[in-house]
Each structure stands twice: as structure tokens, then as C-alpha cells.
């Protein structure tokens, strides 16, 4: 399997929205490649005809009645926000003016 270059590591960090320092990127480049080497073992197995398993207990979908229940108190939820106003979480503008 292909190894990760430094620019690959930077690209993945961007996809993951992780702000990493140059030192962290260097360390991760080595460590991720070492871990990816372990993945190579899976190529030994022929899985062409094997179905994937996403969950193990084979539950059918369980539907519940659509009942209105009280929501969490807004003040308690907003207590965890860095900034709030008028019952909303304040974030920087997403679209430029």
C-alpha cells in the first residue's frame, strides 16, 4: 500500500480540521506510516466474496412512536457555548458581506 508523504499528511490534517504544528506533522508522518504498514497484512486475505460487517447484532430497524417530549432547557445547553445571544450560539460569519 502507498506510504503517506508529508503533503498527504497535511492534506489529511486539513480534511480532519486539525491545526497541527510542523513538529506534530513530522511526528505523525513517521507514526502513521508505521501504522499503515500493519494494515498491509489485510491484503493477504481474499475477501472478494465476503460481505462487509457494519454491526454485529443483526437487529432489524426498531421504530418508535413519534411522541413530542420536552427538549433540554435552552439555558442549560447554552451554558456550554463559548458565546451565545438571544438563545443562539454565536459563531463567526460564514458568508462574507
Amino acid at each position, binding site marked *: 500500500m502507498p506510504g503517506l508523504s508529508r503533503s498527504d499528511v497535511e492534506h*489529511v490534517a486539513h480534511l480532519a480540521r*486539525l*491545526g497541527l504544528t510542523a513538529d506534530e506533522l513530522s511526528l505523525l508522518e513517521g507514526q502513521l506510516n508505521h*501504522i499503515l504498514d500493519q494494515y498491509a497484512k489485510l491484503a493477504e486475505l481474499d*475477501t472478494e466474496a465476503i*460481505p*462487509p460487517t457494519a454491526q*454485529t*447484532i443483526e437487529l432489524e430497524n426498531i421504530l418508535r412512536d413519534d411522541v413530542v417530549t420536552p427538549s433540554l432547557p435552552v439555558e442549560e445547553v447554552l451554558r456550554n457555548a463559548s458565546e451565545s445571544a438571544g438563545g443562539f450560539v454565536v459563531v*463567526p460569519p460564514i458568508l462574507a458581506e
Partner: protein
Amino acid sequence: MTDLTRLLAHEMADRLRSGEVSSRELTEAHLDAAEAGNHALNAWLTIDRDEALRQADAADERLKGPDAGSADDHPLLGIPVALKDLISVRGGQCTAGSRILEGYISPFDAHITERLRSVGAVMLGKTNMDEFAMGSSNEHSAYGPVSNPWDLETVPGGSSGGSAVAVAAYHAPLSIGTDTGGSIRQPAALTGTVGMKPTYGRVSRYGIVAFASSLDQIGPFARDTRDAAALLHAIAGRDERDSTSAPVPVPDELLTIPLNDDEAATGLRGKRLGLPKEYFVAGMEPDSRRRIEEAVAGLEGAGATVEEVSLPHTDYGLATYYIVAPAEASANLARYDGIRFGPQLGEGDVLGNYLATRGRGFGPEVKRRIMLGTYALSAGYYDAFYVKAQKVRTLIKRDFDTLFEQGFDALVAPTSPSVAFRFGAKMADPVAMYLSDACTLPVNMAGLPGVSIPCGLSEGMPVGLQLIGPAWSELELFRLARGFEALTAGADWRGKEPAQIALTTDPAQPTPAQRAATLGGRG
């Protein structure tokens, strides 16, 4: 006077009902122990004395009230319990061991918190853990490592290290952990406690900080199988707020695991057990291996048959797990963006804030796993990594299914390839750390229940025996584990307290962080 903290939970329950002791007295004794031991052990992130005493007083009222002794009385009424700090308790901090959730206050109770409240258990506080439950040593906590009371220079295992130590060090008779790849069973093994990962779907995860949603499961720690079974009974069962919570009845027999040693040991007669040869992995410590072999001989002596069996895809478990779990984690941890969860850092645009919040809020192991998972799910690699891993997961699950279809009651195996290791020993090499879970993570991949119970000491450190059963066989596993416990009731290692327990209340001792630094811990 008896030291109340040394009693087992069911012994405490007897004394509560006879009026010999109150829940307030029990709770105070444990709070005192937890506070005294936290400097040297760092097992707790929050100890809530006032709230715990309020719950204890409420339990005492119930114990004295008109309904006292009724069938509704759960054996956990009035008994102290510790919760891993990823379980929501309304109005309390819930950090998941991460800086990014420092100061986060849960606005609601987790399902299991509600269940513990309803049976009248007393919640003492929240225990230390590897950040977002990612780790096998508790060294990845943003709030410092935890010492193992058997040797304060060694780790307790992880990720539920604080919950394991709280029970091993007599701060609580019971605690709750979570197990995604071994995070209950491995620390149970390393601290000489009992820990069970139930079947996937057995316990609702509503209100639990998610790591890898197809693998995470909540379970109990105790110093005794009967106590662990009673705690599972309290928290298990269907909850419609977790769509993976299964509508499978929870057997009340979990509360009547044989107390009597002879009766319990008799239950082993005629049981058919498999010994998977692949679990004696390369690099397993020879002395740990001997303890497992002695345990197997003991089980055979009690009338069980033990046959060597094969789980041929065991060796692929590590790679499979380290694709599936990080992939799910990378998706679950997207919510820590400074808006939904976490402090909003940075002063730039939305993207700049994301990068700052996540870059500064997450520790190195969490970043590694998010990177791995993001890569495994990214365009061009999804089939090669994620789909491939899901297919191998099918093969791993089929290995277990095949054996249980052949009529094996359970499998016996080591829980961990080694006893507790020193701080720093595996911090520089993530793969070495990941191998700590080689014997536990296939069980999560297959969604099965597994329990670790103490089976002796290796050079003075605890060794754990793992029993793995088919789906929904927790009761049978606890009966088998209780049988083994009964069989070894007279063993010289059984009654031993953790070797350095006396040092844990000495304020002159270094903290675990200081010990780790001295040993070159942080790598």
C-alpha cells in the same frame, strides 16, 4: 471496627439491610478513601462529596421506609459506585479525559445514570481515563496518568484506568467503564479486578461520549463476579434513545449468582470450553502464560473440558480494529468544533476557529486516530481500507460463530499479553501500545461479551483470565467466572491486597505524573 471499604458490595448490602451500617457511613468511608488516595493514584477527576451524601441519605430513607425490603429493592441500593468520566450526569462536568471538554457541564443524565439513580446507588464521582477512551494505559489522559496500586510506577491499563483503580484501591466497590477494544477487560486484568464487556446492544449508550459506535459498550468493574453481575443487572436493558440497544430480556438470575463456593464450583462440571491457540500471541510473557495454563488445569480439575481451538483470523484483528475504530472516531469527533462542543478558539473565520479549537483541544493519541480514520475514509482509500476492514471483520466474527455453533459454552484466553507495564514503556511506539489489546479487541469486532477475572500473580502483579461467550451469554459467563473464583477461593494470591496500597494514602508520595516524568514517560 471493620474497614467498610474492604467489604464486597453484596456484603455491604447485607449490612445495610441489617441496619448494622448506613449508606451515609459507607459513602463517607469511600469518599475519605478516594480523597486520601487521589494524590498518589489520580484515579478521580471529580469527587462530589455533597451530592454523594445527598444520594446516600436518600438511600437510607428508602432502606428505613415503608417499602424497605420489598422486591423493588435492588442490591445496589445505598452502594457507592464510580463512573468513568464520559458518562453524563446532569449538572456535573464530563471531560472524557480531554482538554476540549474541560468545564463542559452535562445538561442531562445518561441512561445508565438514570438507572443507577432509580436503584438508589450512590455516585461518588467521575474517574480518570484515556482521552476519548483511546489508549491502553491511561497515559493519554489530558489530566495526567493513573498509578496502579500494585506498583505505583506502573500503569493500570486503559482506557478505563481510573475506574479499575477506584475499585482495586478500595475507593469504591463498583465502577462503570466502557470497552471499545478492551478498555474494561485489560485494566481489570492489570489491576486484579473483575471487568465485563457485555454484548453489543446490552447496555444503552445514551448519554455516553462516543468513540467508535459499532464497538463501544458499557460495563461493570468489581472485586467479585457477583457484584459485577449485580451492577450489570442495574444498567442493562432496552432504551429507545439508543437505536442499537437490543430488546433482549435481562435475566434476574444475574442477582442470584451462587454465593456458596462449593455450589459455584459445581457449576463448572460438564462445561465445554475452547482455548484459542492464537491468543497466546508472540511476545506474551511466559509467566503470564503459565498463570493461564494453571487456570485451565483448575477448570479441568473441576470437571470442565477444555479443548484447544482455532480462531484463524485473530492475527488480522489489530489491523482491522485500527481501521474501523479510528474511522468511526474521526466521524464521531467531528462534533468537537468549538460550536457544538468545545471552546471556540481563534479569532479568524470559521475554518481558522475549527483548526485552533481541535488542534489545541485534542491530545496526541486522539489526533493520531482522527488522522488515521480520516485517511481510511478519504476518497480513493475507502475501499482499500474501510471496506476491506469491514470484510475482514466478517471473517473474525465467523471464527467465533463457528465455535459457538459447535457447542462450546465459552472460550478461555488471556486478557492481556503482559502484566502492568511501567510508565512510558509504550508511549514512543503507538503500535506497541495497540498490541496490549490483541486478546481483547477481536471480541469487540464480533460484538460478543467477555469478562476478565483475576487468575493469579506474575512477579507480584495481577494476571487476568478472559472468558468469552456467545451473544447475550453474560449470565453464563458470570456463572463460569464465579465457578473459577470459587475454585481459587483458597489460593494464596486471592486474599492479597494491592502490594503498594499502603503508600497510596501517603501525601509525601510523588503523583503519577511525577513518576511518569521521572521514568521518561511522556513520549
